[in-house]
């Protein structure tokens, strides 16, 4: 395979990955604006943090090839993979402790898990 064809194939592959990742990023950011309350927005932020970010990093890895840049991109991806759920959980737990509850809650089994503390009045 001559270098020009290889470069073209690489550009096509990374273009597809970038397009999918960018679409997820934009949808997630749009959801962050559109959804009604903190609890639903957590999931929109999850879409940005996981699929969007990782896919764009993968696209950059395809662009970089086997270089040191790919190694650093893998490390960034690993950091995001480990830290983003922890940060999301920290926000959810802090909001729960502050007494903020989801709007139009269908089913609430929080009493089963934490006992009496779930009966705390929500803050205004």
């Amino acid at each position: 395979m001559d270098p020009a064809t290889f470069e073209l194939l690489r550009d096509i592959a990374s273009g597809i990955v970038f397009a999918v990742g960018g679409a997820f990023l934009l949808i997630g950011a749009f959801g962050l604006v559109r959804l009604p309350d903190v609890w639903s927005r957590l999931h929109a932020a999850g879409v940005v943090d996981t699929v969007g970010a990782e896919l764009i990093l993968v696209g950059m890895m395809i662009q970089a090839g086997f270089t040191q840049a790919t190694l650093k991109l893998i490390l960034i991806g690993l950091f995001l993979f480990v830290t983003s759920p922890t940060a999301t959980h920290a926000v959810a737990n802090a909001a729960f402790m502050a007494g903020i509850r989801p709007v139009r809650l269908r089913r609430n089994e929080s009493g089963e898990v934490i006992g009496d503390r779930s009966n705390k009045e929500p803050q205004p």
Partner: protein
Amino acid sequence: MAILLAITAALFVAVLLVLIRLFAGPTLYDRVLAVNTFGTLTVLLLSALGFVTERPDFLDIAMLYALINFVSTIAILKFFRYRALGRATTRGEEV
């Protein structure tokens, strides 16, 4: 390079949307969430800019930013929960 410029533009649009939530968010937790997402997008933006300007050093900055972003999110939440940063939070402690 046109692909990377396109993805940079998409990242800018996403950052603008997140900034709307950052300024409008009614509660503190909306804002913290927006700041965290903003940080993730900044990491991606820094890496993309490193490719566009062909300076791989930007990746080191992006890596550091990913770590600082996580620590700052946790620090803000810890501060607003305990109203102090110095106190240790032992396991099983009820607040």
